[in-house]
């Protein structure tokens, strides 16, 4: 029997569709509304909440906690201050990305890692050489992302402590008399927060949030709307932009941080001597210029998309639901130069956008490339333009 998250009784009441997917063995909403577009607008225009409870959560505690984290994770954790969180990745010895997650620093010797994939075995194995304790707390906490321009107004009603929370800061506070951790993080590219709640009190906290959110238009959103917002935010998703290198069958299924557009996480590695897994390979890749790919944004102009269909007698009806497959990319001569890993129509930006992997010489913003589409039962290439990421980055996200 598939499991349900602690919020499920309330989420099931709120769902008009009862359309659930399976996230690590838990029911996870595809969408609550009859149309995920309206959930998406809820996030961009008011506030939405997404049940992230199926995330894996690990405590990393002990004298060597920082040492272990600085070795296991590619981003330097030594600069992470108390009450701050950081997005991070971990690589294999060949410098390929295994997975990503968010690391919270609760104390000098205490961290919490949240990740989409299970990592208890890996962390335990690494920890053998260190004075640390790894605790799988995945089932101890429910978690909820509250995202959108009204998210601060809603949470402030419940706990004024969050008013001054900076981007990627977190605080331990209370909602409905329950101790919770609230971080200013999320996967929407917008102003937003995530709340980590002890499982036993998850429902009363959700109810308090729902009550505070009602006059602000707070609504639940599911996986489809999550996908739309994260593509606009240019955030890579495991299983879509990349897969864990440890389960890859071919070199084509492994990617380095620079190839995945995450080189910025490795700021300063050339200048220090911090040992971490993958370091030597990444430095070698940089020295040799041997990156095979660059990750870029692509956009398709409305007029080109319209013409693609109109000239063939079809109505051009763009779809905001991210396509579930990769779309091939070509240069002007018809030579394959990469592929889009994510592609969708952005209602906010009023054009198609995608996250794509291209050969480095095609990565310059403004470059014209061609995206393969199926129209009228034929493969037809439509012009696309290389852009930087993210596509959507409102000031309020970090302000």
């Amino acid at each position, binding site marked *: 029997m598939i499991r349900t998250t602690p919020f499920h009784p309330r989420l099931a009441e709120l769902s008009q569709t009862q359309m659930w997917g399976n996230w690590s063995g838990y029911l996870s909403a595809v969408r609550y509304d009859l149309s995920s577009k*309206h959930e998406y607008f809820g996030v961009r225009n008011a506030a939405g909440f997404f049940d992230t409870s199926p995330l894996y959560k690990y405590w990393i505690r002990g004298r060597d906690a920082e040492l272990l984290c600085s070795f296991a994770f590619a981003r330097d954790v030594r600069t992470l201050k108390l009450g701050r969180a950081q997005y991070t990745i971990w690589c294999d010895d060949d410098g390929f990305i295994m997975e990503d997650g968010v690391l919270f620093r609760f104390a000098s010797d205490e961290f919490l890692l949240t990740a989409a994939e299970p990592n208890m075995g890996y962390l335990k194995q690494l920890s053998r050489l260190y004075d640390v304790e790894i605790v799988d707390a995945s089932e101890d906490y429910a978690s909820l992302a509250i995202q959108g321009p009204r998210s601060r107004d809603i949470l402030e009603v419940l706990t004024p402590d969050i008013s001054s929370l900076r981007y990627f800061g977190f605080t331990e506070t209370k909602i409905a008399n329950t101790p919770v951790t609230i971080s200013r993080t999320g996967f929407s590219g917008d102003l937003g927060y995530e709340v980590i709640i002890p499982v036993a009190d998850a429902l009363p906290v959700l109810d308090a949030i729902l009550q505070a959110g009602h006059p602000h238009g707070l609504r639940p959103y599911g996986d489809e709307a999550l996908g739309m917002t994260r593509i606009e935010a240019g955030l890579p998703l495991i299983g879509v932009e990349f897969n864990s290198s440890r389960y890859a069958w071919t070199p084509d299924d492994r990617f380095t941080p620079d190839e995945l557009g995450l080189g910025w996480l490795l700021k300063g590695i050339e200048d220090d001597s911090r040992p971490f897994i993958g370091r030597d390979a990444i430095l070698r890749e940089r020295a040799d210029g041997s990156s095979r790919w660059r990750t870029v944004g692509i956009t398709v102009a409305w007029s080109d998309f319209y013409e693609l269909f109109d000239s063939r007698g079809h109505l051009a009806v763009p779809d905001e639901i991210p396509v579930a497959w990769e779309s091939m990319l070509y240069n002007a001569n018809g030579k394959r130069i990469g592929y889009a890993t994510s592609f969708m129509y952005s209602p906010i930006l009023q054009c198609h956008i995608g996250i794509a992997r291209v050969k480095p010489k095609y990565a310059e913003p403004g470059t014209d490339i061609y995206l393969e589409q199926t129209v009228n039962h034929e493969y037809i290439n439509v012009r696309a333009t290389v852009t930087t990421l993210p596509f959507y980055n409102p000031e309020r996200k970090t302000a």
Partner: protein
Amino acid sequence: MSDTNSYDAIVIGGGHNGLTNAAYLAKAGKKVLVLEQRHLVGGAAITEELRPGFQFTTFSYALSLLRPEIIQELDLVRYGFMPLLMRSHFAPMENGDYFLLGPDTGLNRQEIARHSKADVDGMERFEHDTARVRQFIRPLFDSIPPNLFSDDPADADKMAWLLKHLGTGNKKVIHDTVRLLTGSIADFCDDYLESDIIKATICSAACVGIKLGPMSPGSGMNWLYLSMGEHDGIGGSWSFHKGGNGGFTQVLARAATAYGAEIRLDSHVDHLITEKGEVKGVALRDGTEFRAPVVVSSLDPRRTFLEIADPRELPADLVETIQRFRFQGVASKVNFALDGLPEYPALSGRADQYLGFINVAPTVEYMERAYDAAKYGWYSEHPYIDACIQSLVDPDMAPPGKHVMSCFVMYTPYELKGSTWQAERENMADRVQATLQGFFPNFNDLVLQREVVSPDIIEAKTGLSEGNIYAGEFFPHQMYFFRPAPGYSDYRTPIRGYYQCGSGTHPGGCVIGAPGRLASQQVLKDLGRAKA
């Protein structure tokens, strides 16, 4: 006369078409001045805070027809363009039941079947056939109509293109097009549907803004016109712009300004300055003069030709055509600030039915009888109301937990027989409120404030003659080749350098922007020719 008062082009009127036109001209590198008579831009597309925290869409209240080309070409997203799509279409019924369409096709089939099993595929055939008509006439919608009466070879080329395009339609599509253009929407619905509430829901869209009932020939054309809009490629879909339609015109003003146009508020243009049949500039009521070789009027045809221009400088046949051009506004707005949400007993506790148009038009006959009153110079005893609660979709429109409700009201003729709007305004609004109370039993208790905008107020505040929301009736003889007058459908006028870009030109009406855009193309083409 200082250089600072000299421009390449002056646009009269800061409504959405004037701003669109100015933005295009400025983007093309012209030094452009927009003159707006009021203290804010937007014309009939404004949002006003009449009560702290409550944003009223005084006149125009929803978006659909705006051409996607304009969004793209003027890069409006950069300046804040944000349409919030309507999710539902709700029609309460006199027996307490309702018809509710939402975003899910499967569920809509179920809802239609509740009223008529035959209408499930009837509706789908209706939608497909009308979508094909839209696809067929769209190229005519988004191009400058050929001047039928010109000897310019460019017009002959355009006529050849038009005839060729008409030749591409198959016989069913062409016949459906003619049925819609010439017939009544009620007849057209009868060919597909049997449920009265479903027919009424479709017919209601045909009755917006024109002095015709659903059974009148010509109402089919208005239905087709109002279905020509789209959002994200979904034909006939509507949205609320963030911050109301005033939020949208603010986006246009930001874009126009960013492209270099100058907008001057509180500047009421009194007349054109002309010399030997050429425009030289304009003079304001306060006597200030601005010079430009191009002046574009976004005002309606009556003001463009008979007030701003001196009709004695115009051909007599044009003056006569404009004098008999029909305005005869019939629409009003009654806008409410509400303390909470109206309750519909059959959907008690639910609010998702209010995320789009709320159509108080329970039967086709109800609307036709509402229209009957207007024929004889009075307003409807039981008005057709197109309501929407924008604050439910856009929380910035009202304080948390409170709401604004915009009610578009038909039929309220500009000229009342034996009375005035000053005398009848509140009586009319009382009928609107009583009608709403009849469907939503808690309505009266919710009302915090009411704003009544009758046709005389529309005229006084926006300058739209007789309060016609389309800047001129949608009659076949006032459309396409003939909007606003035969021989002047290409945005030019007999006065050299004087152009039109208002909703009284093709394909004007609603918040569409196309007249502003197409007129800018004509102006720029003529300027290019003059240079060559």
